[in-house]
């Protein structure tokens, strides 16, 4: 039985600000505690309150990395979740009712006179308000019914748990956790509401739902981590010795910054909220030159403002910063809270002129940790800015994982330092010409290590010069460092190959699509297709020769990207001359569901050309 058939997809939807995220995350935690594996991710608008959002929790007995499109249990807090906003001049979505599988369950507010227009669903109308009223009555808090409105989430959640046959006790335990500190007083009401909803299902509906959790094997003994990319990146940065982070609020990078801010005290580093991204990047460059490991974190619109500072950092051979670029839907302000992989091309040449920098793109949690950590080693070793290219999907999706792989990380490498003999810097040249192009550095404060630096072209001392001979050597010196990096960076950080070497079809992708690709490939292989996957990780310096060999031996190539133009495809052609004629793309602002990608790949196997793989998810 393939994963799509075996897994159970629980989806809750409602207006933004109504608390569905709390309900979903509580449920995800409860499920993990109970020994299931989950993939959980929210889709929401760039809006604070009122617009439609929904949260998918995919329940499995093995780690998954992509959302499912088909829905087994749909939990709705409003009518729009069921039928969409079709009353608008330009409706944004058609709701989720049509995504529910035959025999699937729909939990909804009994007040809605629902006509599903299909008879293959199990409908669970629940009197949210009445049940809430009951709970409040027991605590004599009816007067506060408005304030406790949000408890309807717990009611809907608990009802759906009952439908699925998930233990009430386990659910309550998870709910309780949400009410620590000053929120504790509300715990009772929430727990009681959960009980009432659970009982309501048991008493009013037959226990005959077809998709049971019991179909999945559990391993309660080994509890995995439930982690999102922003957490993984932040932890890796702390581990790497982050000393300074500057940022300007922007989705989806904000969560990483908020996480780091909360850890400043304990680990002793500084996070500064700058006035904009221009200030953020320049603060980070200043901190890097001062000798700390510095970083900044943003998404497309902010990154575009950092362009100037990245060129500056590279020109002055600053040992950093590391720039975390969490891609989102573009161009311009675009789709602030949605997924896209459209900043690769820009990240490769983020400013005018020719300069050296590194670009690495992790595809899963473990790689986020590895790359985020190594980025600092590389920044200091090669004295250049490093861009870690991630995305909204990787940032926000919770996945289960055995570990973050911190144990396996190489030691901290701070690169070459100059050891002054005397107290005068007479024979110190910050930009000395060397074999590797890397010049031993000092940090401000070092006696005998004084240097100058400038964004203008400069001589080995760091003073301005426009001489032709020096210019030729300095440009070569700075660019040479990329060749050294290309030699030293480990192969698995460049690209990875998954699946049989002799596949009929080789899928090529990067970043978070790795999840959907691996999930879909597992299914395709189960169905007898011989497919493998080449995941490109290091975008600059690009492993052109290695990849060229690999790809030219492949039978058929299929490019998979979440953008319109196929940016990795263009990069591969630029670097290897190999043009990929089968492409599965999507640019609708949503990550591939496993079904979308599988279907897209099947189409691509039949004929060359570009397949748009979108089921128009809400």
């Amino acid at each position, binding site marked *: 039985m393939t994963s799509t058939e075996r897994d159970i997809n629980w989806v809750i939807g409602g207006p933004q600000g109504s608390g569905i995220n709390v309900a979903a995350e509580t449920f995800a935690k409860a499920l993990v505690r109970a020994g299931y594996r989950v993939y959980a991710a929210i889709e929401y608008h760039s809006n604070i309150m009122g617009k439609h959002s929904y949260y998918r929790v995919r329940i499995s007995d093995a780690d998954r990395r992509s959302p499912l499109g088909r829905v087994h249990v749909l939990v709705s807090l409003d009518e729009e979740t069921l039928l969409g906003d079709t009353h608008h001049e330009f409706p944004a979505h058609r709701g989720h009712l049509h995504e529910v599988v035959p025999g699937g369950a729909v939990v909804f507010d009994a007040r809605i006179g629902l006509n599903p227009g299909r008879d293959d669903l199990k409908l669970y109308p629940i009197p949210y308000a009445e049940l809430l009223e009951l709970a409040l009555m027991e605590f004599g808090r009816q007067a506060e019914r408005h304030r406790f409105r949000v408890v309807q989430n717990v009611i809907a959640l608990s009802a759906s748990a009952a439908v699925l046959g998930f233990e009430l006790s386990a659910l309550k335990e998870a709910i309780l956790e949400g009410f620590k500190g000053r929120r504790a007083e509300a715990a009772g009401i929430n727990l009681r509401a959960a009980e009432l909803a659970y009982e309501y299902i048991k008493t009013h509906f037959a226990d005959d739902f077809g998709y049971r959790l019991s179909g999945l094997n559990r391993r309660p003994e080994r509890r*995995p981590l*439930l982690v999102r990319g922003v957490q993984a990146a932040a932890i890796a940065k702390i581990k790497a010795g982050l000393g300074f982070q500057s940022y300007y609020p922007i989705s989806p990078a904000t969560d990483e910054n908020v996480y780091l801010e909360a850890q400043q005290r304990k680990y002793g580093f500084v996070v500064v909220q700058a006035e904009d991204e*221009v200030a953020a990047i320049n603060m980070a460059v200043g901190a890097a030159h001062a000798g700390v490991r510095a970083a900044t974190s943003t998404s497309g619109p902010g990154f575009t403002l950092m362009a100037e500072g990245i060129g500056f950092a590279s020109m002055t051979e600053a040992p950093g910063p590391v720039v975390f670029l969490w891609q989102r839907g573009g161009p311009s302000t675009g789709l602030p809270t949605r997924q896209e992989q459209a900043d690769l091309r820009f990240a490769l040449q983020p400013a005018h002129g020719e300069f050296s920098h590194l670009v690495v793109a992790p595809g899963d949690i473990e790689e986020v940790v590895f790359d985020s950590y190594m980025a600092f080693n590389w920044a200091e070793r090669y004295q250049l800015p490093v861009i870690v290219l991630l995305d909204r999907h990787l940032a926000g999706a919770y996945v289960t994982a055995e570990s973050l792989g911190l144990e396996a990380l190489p030691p901290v490498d701070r690169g070459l330092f100059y050891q002054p003999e005397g107290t005068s810097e007479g024979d110190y040249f910050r930009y000395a010409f060397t074999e590797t192009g890397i010049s031993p550095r000092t940090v401000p404060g070092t006696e005998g290590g004084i240097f100058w*630096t400038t964004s203008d072209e400069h001589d080995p001392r760091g003073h301005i010069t426009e001489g032709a001979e020096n210019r030729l050597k300095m440009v070569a010196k700075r660019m040479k460092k990329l060749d050294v990096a290309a030699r030293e960076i480990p192969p698995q950080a460049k690209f990875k190959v998954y699946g049989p070497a002799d596949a009929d079809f080789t899928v090529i992708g990067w970043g978070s699509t790795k999840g959907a690709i691996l999930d879909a490939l597992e299914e395709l292989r189960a169905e007898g297709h011989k497919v493998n996957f080449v995941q490109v990780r290091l975008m600059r310096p690009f492993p052109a020769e290695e990849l060229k060999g690999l790809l030219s031996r492949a039978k058929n190539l299929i490019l998979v990207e979440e953008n319109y133009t196929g940016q990795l495809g263009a990069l591969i052609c630029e670097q290897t001359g190999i043009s990929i004629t089968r492409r599965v793309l999507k640019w609708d602002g949503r990550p591939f569901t496993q079904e979308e990608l599988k279907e897209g790949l099947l189409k691509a196997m039949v004929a060359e050309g570009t397949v748009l793989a979108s089921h128009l998810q809400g």
Partner: protein
Amino acid sequence: MATKLKVYEVKDYRADIDSDWCPGCGDFGILAAIQQALYKLQIPPHRVAVCSGIGCSGKTPHYLRAYGFHTLHGRVLPFAAGLKLANHGLTVIAVGGDGDGYGIGAGYFINAGRRNIDFTYIVFNNEVYGLTKGQAAPTLPQGAKTKSMPEANIQQGLNPIVLAIGAGYTFVARGFALDVKHLSELIARGIAHRGSAFIDVLQTCPTYNDIHTKEWYLGLDRPEKRPRLYKLEEAGFDPVVANPEDPEEVRAKQLAAITKSYEWGERIPIGVFYQVKLPTFEDRLREKGILGEIPLAEADLFRRDVTELIEALR
């Protein structure tokens, strides 16, 4: 450290490279004033970081013997902020032009005032974009036309002192590039001040600014040859807030400074306009328990135990 014992001479603050400023440029005066201020305070050259923007003024760090960072046009303040927070043990001086600071850098000039990071910011105010051949800078009055301009300035000049006060700078002063002694004292006071010290320096640009020239500032164009510049301290002006806790006094001193800043033309005040002792950004970080005594750049941040963070994910 050995450096403690050592006595530094002025020449220890000079880089052995010749400047490429025009003969008679006011920048020479500012450079000398910075060197003398550092000498006065006997700050070891290697404990000093001088950061600059882009422009004629931006070349200053190259002529100083100290860690020199000639950054980007308009970005010197964020750069200096990051540098200082990464190593708060250093003496950080930021310099730049008026175009650099009040034009392309205006947003950073304003927002730096909200932090009070302990550094000194010196603006070379020559009313023109020197290095790009004399276009109007944000300080040039409307209607003024220097010899380098095809026509009169269509934009108004702005008042840096008012903006600095409004932005929250805790030390606000104005100097004159050709009065090196007075300027070096101002800079020394600015460096000594804990917090963001802002010094707008009236700088002559003989090549492009033929309006506010040395002669004009010194009043040599007037029959009685009386200088237009006068020193606030000599006029008995008291810029210092005695009790920072007292909002009334703070307001009063700020208003006095602003009032003074409007004097221009026949009598132009130089000196300290305003000073108040308030917690620096570093102090605030310490208060929050985020920043310790050891500068981040000198701390060992590489043996961190993150198990707690990981366990929280289970």
